[in-house]
């Protein structure tokens, strides 16, 4: 934040262009995700949907929420929240997905 203000007070008027460009990109990606969802890609439907959603979210975070010009602490905070969510989902999912494995090993002996 402080760096961004310093740049502005050098006499430059802050630009609107990044916001409009991100807006356009978000609209395009929305259309893209609707179109891709209509194709039958099997398990990759989920992968594609998540990749597009993460890309959209990243654009919002970096440009609309100014994180691209924010301090390291802000960036670390954003990443930490996401990492913690991933910890919760992955370890829980890990339980459910691996539950049958022991039976499979035992059956295959």
């Amino acid at each position, binding site marked *: *934040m*402080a760096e961004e*203000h*310093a740049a*502005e*007070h050098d006499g430059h*008027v*802050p630009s*609107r262009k990044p*916001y*409009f460009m*991100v*807006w356009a990109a*978000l*609209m395009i990606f*929305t259309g893209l*995700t*609707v179109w891709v*969802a*209509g*194709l*039958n*890609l099997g398990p990759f*439907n*989920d992968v594609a*949907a*998540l990749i*597009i*959603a993460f890309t*959209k*979210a990243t654009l*919002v*975070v970096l*440009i*609309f*929420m*100014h994180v691209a010009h*924010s*301090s390291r*602490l*802000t960036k670390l*905070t*954003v990443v*930490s*929240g*996401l990492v*913690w*969510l991933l910890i*919760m*989902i992955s370890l*829980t*999912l890990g339980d*459910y*997905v691996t539950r049958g494995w022991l039976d499979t090993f035992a059956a295959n002996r």
Partner: protein
Amino acid sequence: MHSSGHVALQHHFDDLDTQREASTFGMWVFLCTEILFFGGLFLLYVIYRQRFHGVFVQASRHLDVKWGGINTAVLICSSLTMALSIWAAQINRRKLVVVFLLVTMAFGATFLGIKAIEYGDKFHHHLVPGANFHYACPPGEECHPEQAQIFFSLYFCLTGLHAMHMVVGLGILSCLLLPAWRGRYNAEWHNPLECSGLYWHFVDIVWIFLFPLLYLIGRHVA
């Protein structure tokens, strides 16, 4: 850049810079809590989707992609106008700040209106979980109504929680209108706009994930 003695400076901060950094950081920490708050519901979604994959795909087709898509576009536009209201403050255009805030709020209200239409539609089709839930099985397909109820429970919990956050967001923005009109937000100080914007963009991001996960998972099935 020091502004001690500025009207917005609170007594326990040494200067406006510290106050700005503290409140922006505080909002980000709060947004982390929101990530985990919604995250609990997303975990429920992930586990049940993995378990009842077929039913989730089938039930998702009861959601109207048209309304969901329009709502996604509406929120994206609202994020644009929110960012532009901050830009307007940075160039000291007080009235433009108010205009952009009002447009953002209009987009938010539109989103909620569309959600009301969708919820009403679900109610008519007996897809609201509870005593009146009745899932009409598509002909020729496997049918598990109680698993479909779980999908709709998650739909209403996720979008309902999201809608509540939208309402709070509208409340926050409405509190900014009067100070904005009075010219309180300018190049030197517009931190309340910035923090409110962070909240608003976060709510937009939640929807960016909800839309494909709830509305689009059944689209590839004919």
